[in-house]
């Protein structure tokens, strides 16, 4: 054993979800706003294609925070 060596644990690799949290949050944030016109127009005009597109975007935007750390 090396004299004077400390037993402090070295920090492990930063988890992926933590390292890229800000980027992921940015993606999620803008995805919500991208879905907004589709949801509004789809709802008001009752157009299934717009509504479906908005759902895909909403679901993706909501899945992104789930992979982040915190």
């Amino acid at each position, binding site marked *: 054993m090396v004299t004077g060596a400390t037993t402090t644990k070295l920090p492990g690799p930063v988890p992926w979800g933590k390292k890229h*949290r*800000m980027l992921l*949050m*940015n993606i*999620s*944030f803008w995805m*919500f*706003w991208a*879905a*907004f016109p*589709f*949801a*509004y127009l*789809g*709802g*008001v005009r*009752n157009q*299934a294609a*717009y*509504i*479906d597109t*908005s*759902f895909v975007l*909403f679901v993706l*935007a*909501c*899945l992104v*925070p*789930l992979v*982040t750390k*915190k």
Partner: protein
Amino acid sequence: MDKGVVLTLGTWLLAFLPILVLLSTILLFRWGAPKAGAVSWFTAVAVSVFVFGADARLLALANSKGLSLSLYVLLIIWSAVFLYNIAETIGAIKVIGNNMAKVTDDRLMQCLLMSWCFSAVMQGIAGFGVPIAVVAPIMVVMGFPPAVAAATCLIGHSWAVTFGSMGTGYYTIQLITKIPGEVFGPWMAILFVVPIVTTGFAVAHIYGGFSAVKRGTPAIIVTSAVMGFTCWLMNMIGAAQLASLIPALLGCGTMALMARTGLYRGAAASQAAGQAEAPQGLGFNLAFSPYYILILVSIASQIKGISRIFAPYTFGMDYPAIKTGMNFAVKAEKMYSRINISHPAPLLLMAAILSFLVFRAAGRWQKGAAVKSFKSTFSQCIPTSVGIITMVMMALVMVDSGMTFLLAQGMAKATGKLFPLASPFIGELGAFLTGSGASSNVMFAALQVETAKVLGISTVIIASAQAVGSSIGGAIAPAKVLLGTTLVGLDGGENEVMNKVLPYCLGVALCTGIVAWSFAYILFRGLQ
């Protein structure tokens, strides 16, 4: 006629599931708001589709309304954080904090003065979130722990919400219930004595436990008496729009006077906090100029002539009426979540621009401060914004699919003669979900008054209990909690703040409920 799903214990529990998921993920699993909000949104969508008969179109409209409402809230948060960052970059926040600390050396009195009285002054003038955005960061500079600063501001200003923002909540409930203001206002003010007193004690308890409550009792009682009486007086003379602002201003004065009495001067020396290092030559008035300007433009925006000029510059979206598969009717909305000159965001941005001019004229502007402030605002606000969007969307899915109505209906039916006890909690539920006292009144005031009529008790008292609940419930609204945590630098610390505020919020509602019950069934049985 609204119908929706039949009320049973099972459907009520399912309607409560998204809120349960939200609270348990934040409070028990200590998840951050974006993650908790996302899971709650998935839960709300699933329950609304499989149990409450929501179809794809209804969900698209509900989510779109959620984003409209989020936009309303986020504009305030982004501009409040931007104004704060400008003041912070110049060094003004440190100067304000140091000067506020000079009013009294007593830490408990500082805490009460700032979070209970001064934040209520800000609530009296500006609306949603501004008191927290302005006061909580100053308290951090004064040396209060961030979680304490955010929690005390959240609960401390909540008594001023209904009569605050120039009486927005008060006028809303009047419109919905059709009870004349001159009948309703004074009674509402009498019931508001309960949150005035209890939020004072709550602030003291968050700050320093029971010893602080004991030591702060004389100041809290005297200041509550002044604020409660003035609130009632303002309603009696027909100036309900000032029934938060004037009492809060007098409360600040009373608190400063109490701090100079022998009761609070003795303990001062040992408790004085260290002063933050402030820039040389920057005086208090110049440092506070962004907020002076904010107060001035907020008052100016209430002047009818000015608001008329800006009236065409109003943004809002129209939504059609729709029904769920279970026949729950959602009314059409015109100019939903309207943003105009009296919305805090344009006022905050105007204050930021005018502050830039003032600081530049005084030679205190630093080159690149605006860009630096914008960059910090962006990085601070993105995670908060995702959290708010998911939670508000969850709330709107619940509202439009009839889940929220069923929750309130269940609480009303289950309590029977004890309904006045539940009444403030229903108001809190609305404010918790929407982050706005006025919106809670829109959602539940009619239901509360109708239930009161069925039970044969005073509609005035029940509507007042709803008003108190809607006022206090904002303190635990995720959007407001996130605003507080963002500004005090506690990103991801929502659970800590929520844990601190929630018990007091429920306690204030319970106290209000007990008083409302005694008014309705014992003291004022004959009241309209």
